[in-house]
């Protein structure tokens, strides 16, 4: 496999030392798993705690007197009520109502926002934000300077409290604390994650990341903390039915068809893509499938109701906690309801599935 031109995160040496199996992902060389393997890592996050390097994610600052107005125009969610120290998820649409990316905005203060975007979309996002900027606002790409760790699982609060004072730990889900001391270095800590568990995402100066990574693994050992790779990150998010850009949505898919209606505020005065979303009729929706037949359904496989093709899977895997194969699919909105028994074409073989409510797993 060609590894030239792939970027290494500040934690590359730690991954090698932890026995990580490094693979190319979104232009980065990242661990897909460590020695324990995906199943063990997945279960550690559900029952104890896991530590992920997600430094490939992009960080963009949005600052200026008109920052809020720009966010409200760029993003489908409404940031007017976002308080200091809070986080909010949103799709970002193009004028046609397709999703450019999905992201999380953190508010540091008035006119001071921190945006976290997908690694593969970062350059595109930054260029789009800059091209759409209006009034007093500056977007700055800080991705190269910032490392991100995700500490996820029921033991995460106990583990982080070993390195962070209690008053500096964000208490509420989707809250965050800027510039708090973490074992002697400044960190931004948010109570967010992509696993369906309680936990934190920790933003650090790149140079501080290796020491904090090793400190977390050391103090977390007695709680069962283990390093986790991208493999477990994907099975965890899929079991929790969290959408992944490029799978559940892309520039050709509206956030409404991707099942993200609650993050699209059609009552806002305006945002990019609103007119297209208002004019379009919603013909597709996101559903969950539980595999009842033999096999594992993967992404990009056709879904059938009887002989009629009704849609396509967008993600699929073996769900380690549920111990069964599950998938998400985008299907004709009027053709399918929960409880329906469908089939999926798995490499020429029809595998039986049942439409179930999302999420598959809820803590």
């Amino acid at each position, binding site marked *: *496999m060609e590894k030239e031109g792939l970027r290494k995160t500040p934690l590359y040496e730690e991954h090698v030392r932890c026995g990580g*199996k490094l*693979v190319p992902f979104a232009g980065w060389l990242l661990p897909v798993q460590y020695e324990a393997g*995906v199943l063990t890592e997945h279960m550690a996050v559900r029952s104890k705690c896991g530590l992920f390097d997600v430094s490939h994610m992009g960080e963009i600052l949005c600052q200026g007197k008109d920052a809020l107005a720009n966010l409200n125009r760029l993003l489908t969610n409404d940031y007017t009520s976002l308080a200091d120290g809070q986080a909010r998820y949103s799709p970002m649409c193009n004028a046609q109502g397709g999703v450019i990316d999905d992201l999380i905005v953190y508010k540091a203060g008035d006119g001071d926002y921190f945006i976290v975007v997908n690694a593969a979309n970062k350059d595109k996002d930054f260029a789009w934000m800059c091209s759409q900027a209006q009034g007093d606002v500056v977007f700055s790409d800080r991705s190269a300077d910032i490392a991100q760790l995700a500490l996820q699982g029921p033991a995460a609060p106990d583990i982080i409290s070993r390195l962070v004072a209690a008053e500096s730990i964000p208490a509420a889900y989707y809250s965050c604390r800027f510039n708090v001391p973490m074992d002697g270095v400044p960190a931004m800590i948010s109570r967010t994650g992509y696993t369906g568990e309680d936990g934190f995402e920790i933003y650090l100066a790149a140079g501080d990341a290796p020491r904090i990574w090793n400190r977390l693994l050391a103090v977390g050992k007695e709680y069962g903390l283990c390093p986790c790779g991208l*493999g477990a990150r*994907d099975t965890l998010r899929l079991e929790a039915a969290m959408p992944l850009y490029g799978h559940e949505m892309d520039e050709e898919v509206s956030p409404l068809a991707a099942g993200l209606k609650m993050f699209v505020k059609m009552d806002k005065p305006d945002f990019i893509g609103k007119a297209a979303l208002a004019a379009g009729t919603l013909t597709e929706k996101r559903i969950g499938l539980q595999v009842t037949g033999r*096999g594992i359904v*993967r992404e990009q496989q056709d879904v059938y109701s009887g002989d009629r093709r009704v849609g396509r899977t967008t993600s699929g895997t*073996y769900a380690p906690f549920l111990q069964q194969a599950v998938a998400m699919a985008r299907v004709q909105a009027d053709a399918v309801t929960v409880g329906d028994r469908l089939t999926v074409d798995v490499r020429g073989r029809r595998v039986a599935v049942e439409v179930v409510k999302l999420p598959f797993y809820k803590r």
Partner: protein
Amino acid sequence: MNFPEELWYTKSHEWIRMQEDGSAQIGLTDYAQHELGDLVFVNLPAVGDVLAAGETFADVESVKAVSDVFSPVTARVAAVHEELADTPADINNAPYEAWLVRVENITAHEELLNAADYEAYTKTCTVE
């Protein structure tokens, strides 16, 4: 990594154990299971199926991906290790005991490597 001397190996990472009665067991190598990671599903052929050397005859799925298994030989399936369907992790835990099929009437074979040559070959394989 384990490479038992009494087995023959393919470059697609299957092993074949020749039996005195002319039949042979086929499985996945230690290197293959290590590269694939935790296996959660196996799809096996049926007794009586005729396998063709170099052609896929089964697939195994890890959490992340599906992988084809290629037959080292042209032969007829005499027995299928059905229990593996319930415990695919046996392939990870004991790859040289977790045979997939036993074949007979072997009429042709792929390029087969001995243990030393296969071990050397795996060193030249880069991570997927």
